[in-house]
């Protein structure tokens, strides 16, 4: 029997075991005299405890109990007999077990009611038991000292404890019940932090719950299962601890957290949201960088042919002289152009190095997976953003409430920002009031309309103009590229013009938008849309011009190919060499070569990125920092107040910055296929701009006057990013699918199309049946049905979501009706229910009562007893979350308990009364 005890609590150390044995002794004594609870409740099982164990006091107690109830628990009786038959190794243990079982029985009755309540006390009991076990009488003195609530629970907990140690003898359902309880406790522990209780309460609750779990989870499972269970529990605990440590570690690892929080407290969440976005972008780019560097650049550098071995990896003779000049390198010409940073450097060998690494294949797959990964990550973060806000469509219904309850940004820790915030909240209040009052009144609608049309016309003119300008400049640059001795400006004209347009158009748009007289928020949206259109237009004109260039180069390719061919032919066949000695191969620098258009495109994007970065930094330095310095220091000797008046300090332009970031990312996506090094440059750019912009914001910007919230536009930005990603995917996909790669550079040279590399791999490296499967999958007969299926799925999901939102609306109506019905009830009941704002979900106290009813139904024994229990022992709120919410209510709502639960709760009443009567003196004492 001791064995099973050990098995029962495998988690316990030897010391604990002995202590628990002692504890059993003590338990018995409790059972005997003190604890009316167990006796009374345990009446059914009464007959068995007495015999084997305690000869003296015990018997009397059991007799008493017998008298009290007289209905023996059948099962318990049988068991006890069995046990007796089995023999008791020590006088103590059987006694222990029996009491344990008895308690356990009773416990089964009570469990639900005081689940939480009981468990926590165990430890204390145990401690107490040490002292008590020596002499039974002693405990009598000790108990009174304890709190009533504790006393009340003690019997139960100790019974549980003993039942746990009784191990084997537990029946299945008992086990199941304990298991359930333990699970509930665990849930409670997990959700404790989201309970609105003061810390002290949470602490006691937590400790109780933990102790309970620790104690009883060992009792679960039988025989071998126990060990396994204990092991699992141990592992689970370790795992929780590990997870927590890991979380701690993770939060420590988030970069720039303090910087961003600093900014957050000065400028509110909107400015910080830009930096969070920047950080997110940095993370995404790091992954892309890892992909490209790990799978393409590093293998090429390590295992590919070295520089100078073949023409595509060598600087041509004509450029050799200047190839190392800084001005040339800065333009990504010379040695940089013939390096692994660009497409042209890669060889079309199928496998490289001793690993037989399939580089062209890897290059292609990485190019695809860059887009794949970006798509997935953007969509995922969009989805997680939308998850939080469920009622997006409903937000119109709560304009005033939102302004009232959610407009304050608690992060603001700067009094200046706070003043701005006060002002902006006041204006928004006034605006919305005015809107409400005059929503129907429209003054001079014709003039407004005319102005808006005019403004849009002007802006479209601007957009077209900028588009044409870019097209013109790109065309001109193609002419420049053919000429020799072009100046620095002529070389970089495209980038300069694009950057200047990006700098000056948005303010111009803003000025024009003043004509329209929109509401600020609508105005902001228009502004964002227009800037987006501008950037997009510029990017696409640039691409179109570039495409023209590419086609031109492709047309020339044929002639160059012939020239190369002839050069080589002439070289090897020319006379003057001894026929017997093979000629040394032509030096790679001398081989004439085509104008690898892929590298040219890559270089364009590279330059664009770098110049964009520089322009951004210079704008920040001049526009923000110098302006701030000027305002700050010249203010001492100026005729008007510079800080409040005209120049003042710059505000941080969130939308502009975010859009800039998005478009920069678009360029990276487009360019990374042709210039694998581009992502590396971008990572550097993001890193520096993180530090630089953080510094600039803190040093030279002032908080917004019109502080607007971040998160609302967060998904908007993500949506823009997704759009840009899609738009940048198009040209790349077009070039891959429909342009022939250059004949003498890049990993796909010599192939008809770039994607041929896939086919080649499938044919050569996979078994033939796989090739067939792929061919079958690529069949339009299969693809078109698949697309149709997707459309159907979209249609279906769409209609489902519509019907769900309809159901939602109906439920809302129902709630309203319910509330009205309930209000009439309320007037009858008075304020009884009104009090519990703390724990009862107010939404419908009717619901609450219903909930309680169901609760009572599901957990019969708890029904009647919980009341007696909770009234007294509510202090350390012990029950699980569900009962927690309802319990306080039960205190106030005795009426709500329907008599109908009687049958459901079965034996509950029969137990209550004995309990009450028996425990009358000690347990039912009032709490105070």
């Amino acid at each position, binding site marked *: 029997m001791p064995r099973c005890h050990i098995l029962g609590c495998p988690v316990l150390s030897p010391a604990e075991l002995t202590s628990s044995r002692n504890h059993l002794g003590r338990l018995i004594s409790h059972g005997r005299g003190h604890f009316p609870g167990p006796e009374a409740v345990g009446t059914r099982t009464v007959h068995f405890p007495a015999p084997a164990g305690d000869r003296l006091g015990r018997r009397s107690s059991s007799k008493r109990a017998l008298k009290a109830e007289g209905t023996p628990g059948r099962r318990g009786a049988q068991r006890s007999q069995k046990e007796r038959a089995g023999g008791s190794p020590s006088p103590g243990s059987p006694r222990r077990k029996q009491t344990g079982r008895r308690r356990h029985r009773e416990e089964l009755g009570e469990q639900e009611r005081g689940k939480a309540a009981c468990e926590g006390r165990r430890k204390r009991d145990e401690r107490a038991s040490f002292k008590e076990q020596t002499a039974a009488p002693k405990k009598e003195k000790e108990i009174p000292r304890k709190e009533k609530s504790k006393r009340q629970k003690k019997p139960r907990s100790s019974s549980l404890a003993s039942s746990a140690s009784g191990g084997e003898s537990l029946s299945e359902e008992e086990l199941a019940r304990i298991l359930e309880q333990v699970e509930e406790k665990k849930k409670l522990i997990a959700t404790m932090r989201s309970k609105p209780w*003061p810390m002290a309460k949470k602490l006691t609750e937590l*400790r109780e719950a933990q102790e309970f779990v620790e104690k009883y989870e060992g009792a679960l499972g039988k025989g071998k299962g126990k060990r396994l269970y204990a092991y699992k529990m141990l592992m689970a605990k370790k795992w929780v601890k590990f997870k927590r440590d890991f979380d701690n570690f993770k939060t420590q690892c988030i970069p720039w957290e303090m910087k961003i929080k600093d900014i957050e*407290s000065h400028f509110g969440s909107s400015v910080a949201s830009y930096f969070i976005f920047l950080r997110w972008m940095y993370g995404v780019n790091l992954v892309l960088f890892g992909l490209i560097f790990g799978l393409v650049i590093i293998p090429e550098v390590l295992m590919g042919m070295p520089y100078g071995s073949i023409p595509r990896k060598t600087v041509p003779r004509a450029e050799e002289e200047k190839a190392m000049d800084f001005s040339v390198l800065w333009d990504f010409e010379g040695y940089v152009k013939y390096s692994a940073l660009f497409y042209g450097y890669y060889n079309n060998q199928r496998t490289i190095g001793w690993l037989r690494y399939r580089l062209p294949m890897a290059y292609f797959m990485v190019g695809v997976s860059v887009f794949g990964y970006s798509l997935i990550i953007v969509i995922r973060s969009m989805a997680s953003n939308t998850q939080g806000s469920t009622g997006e469509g409903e937000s119109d219904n709560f304009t005033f409430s939102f302004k009232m*309850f959610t407009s304050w940004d608690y992060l603001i820790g700067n009094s200046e920002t706070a003043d701005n915030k006060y002002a902006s909240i006041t204006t928004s209040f006034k605006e919305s009031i005015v809107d409400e009052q005059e929503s129907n009144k429209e003054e001079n609608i014709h003039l407004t309309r005319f102005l808006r049309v005019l403004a849009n016309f002007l802006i479209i003119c601007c957009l077209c103009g900028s588009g044409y300008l870019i097209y013109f400049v790109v065309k001109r640059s193609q002419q420049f590229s053919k000429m020799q001795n072009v100046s620095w400006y002529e070389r970089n004209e495209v980038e300069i013009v694009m950057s200047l347009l990006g700098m000056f158009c948005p303010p111009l748009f803003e000025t024009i938008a003043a004509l329209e007289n929109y509401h600020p928020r609508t105005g902001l949206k228009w502004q964002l849309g227009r800037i987006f259109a501008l950037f997009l237009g510029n990017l696409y004109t640039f691409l179109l011009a570039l495409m023209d260039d590419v086609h031109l180069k492709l047309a020339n390719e044929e002639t160059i190919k012939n020239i190369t061919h002839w050069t080589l032919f002439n070289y090897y066949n020319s006379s003057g060499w001894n026929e017997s000695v093979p000629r040394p191969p032509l030096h790679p620098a001398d081989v004439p070569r085509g104008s690898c258009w892929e590298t040219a495109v890559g270089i364009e994007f590279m330059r664009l990125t770098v110049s964009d970065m520089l322009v951004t930094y210079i704008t920040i330095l001049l526009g923000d920092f110098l302006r701030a310095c000027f305002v700050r220091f010249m203010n001492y000797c100026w005729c008007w107040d510079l800080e409040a008046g005209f120049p003042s300090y710059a505000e941080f332009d969130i939308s502009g910055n975010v859009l800039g970031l998005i478009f920069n990312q678009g360029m990276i996506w487009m360019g990374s296929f042709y210039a694998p090094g581009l992502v590396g440059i971008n990572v550097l750019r993001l890193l520096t701009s993180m530090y630089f912009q953080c510094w600039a914001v803190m040093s030279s910007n002032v908080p917004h006057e019109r502080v607007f*919230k971040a998160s609302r536009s967060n998904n908007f930005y993500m949506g823009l990013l997704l759009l840009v990603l899609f738009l940048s995917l198009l040209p790349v996909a077009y070039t891959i699918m429909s342009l022939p790669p250059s004949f003498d550079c890049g990993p796909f040279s010599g192939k008809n199309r770039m994607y041929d590399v896939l086919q080649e791999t499938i044919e050569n490296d996979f078994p033939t049946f796989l090739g067939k499967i792929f061919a079958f999958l690529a069949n339009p007969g299969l693809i078109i049905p698949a697309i149709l299926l997707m459309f159907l799925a979209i249609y279906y999901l769409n209609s489902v979501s519509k019907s769900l939102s309809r159901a939602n609306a109906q439920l809302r109506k129902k709630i309203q009706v319910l509330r009205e019905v309930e209000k009439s009830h309320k007037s009858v009941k008075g304020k009884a229910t009104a009090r519990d704002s703390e724990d009862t979900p107010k939404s419908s106290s009717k619901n609450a009562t219903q909930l309680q009813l169901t609760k009572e139904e599901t957990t019969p024994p708890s029904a009647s007893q919980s009341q007696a229990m909770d009234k007294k022992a509510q202090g350390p709120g012990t029950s699980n979350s569900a009962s927690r919410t309802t319990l306080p209510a039960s205190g106030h709502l005795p009426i709500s308990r329907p008599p109908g639960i009687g049958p459901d709760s079965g034996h509950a009443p029969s137990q209550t009364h004995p309990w009450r009567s028996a425990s009358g003196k000690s347990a039912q004492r009032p709490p105070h």
Partner: protein
Amino acid sequence: MGGSGSRLSKELLAEYQDLTFLTKQEILLREVLDNETGSERFGDCLRQHSEAHRRFCELLPQEQRSVESSLRAQVPFEQILSLPELKANPFKERICRVFSTSPAKDSLSFEDFLDLLSVFSDTATPDIKSHYAFRIFDFDDDGTLNREDLSRLVNCLTGEGEDTRLSASEMKQLIDNILEESDIDRDGTINLSEFQHVISRSPDFASSFKIVL
């Protein structure tokens, strides 16, 4: 003070981590808040604890900075209110009152302080945030937001300046509108569930109901 004696015990720390949305570093950092008196800030206490505990300690007078006493110590509101993070907040008094567990409601213990930070932390659930927001806005602590509460709330939001105050008619209009939107059962007050109903639809409540120390 030095040595392990002045650290929060591991068990306590683990429990605090279970009970709040804070990480270990944050809890520790938070304790030193009580005395912002220059050099003393960098006392022993600072080195021993980190975030929460440290910030809390800063608020305490020198003699109370050992862990044992700092856990028991009560920090009066004036000192809490002087925290830079709360200085500009129009609800600072309310926040302190709501989180205070002392009988007189005039001081915060370390545990109250942790509660506060936990609720205002990044990872706290919207439910608990809105619960406490409701209690903060419920100026008379009667469990519902009535017109009186709402007008005090508006006054808090519009600041003390005369020019930013709303006129009486504007105020009435505003409160009428709010009640019309949020008071589902039309009993003239907004209760917790109605409040949470509204808040749960707000896209940016959870992101702005944050305080970072």
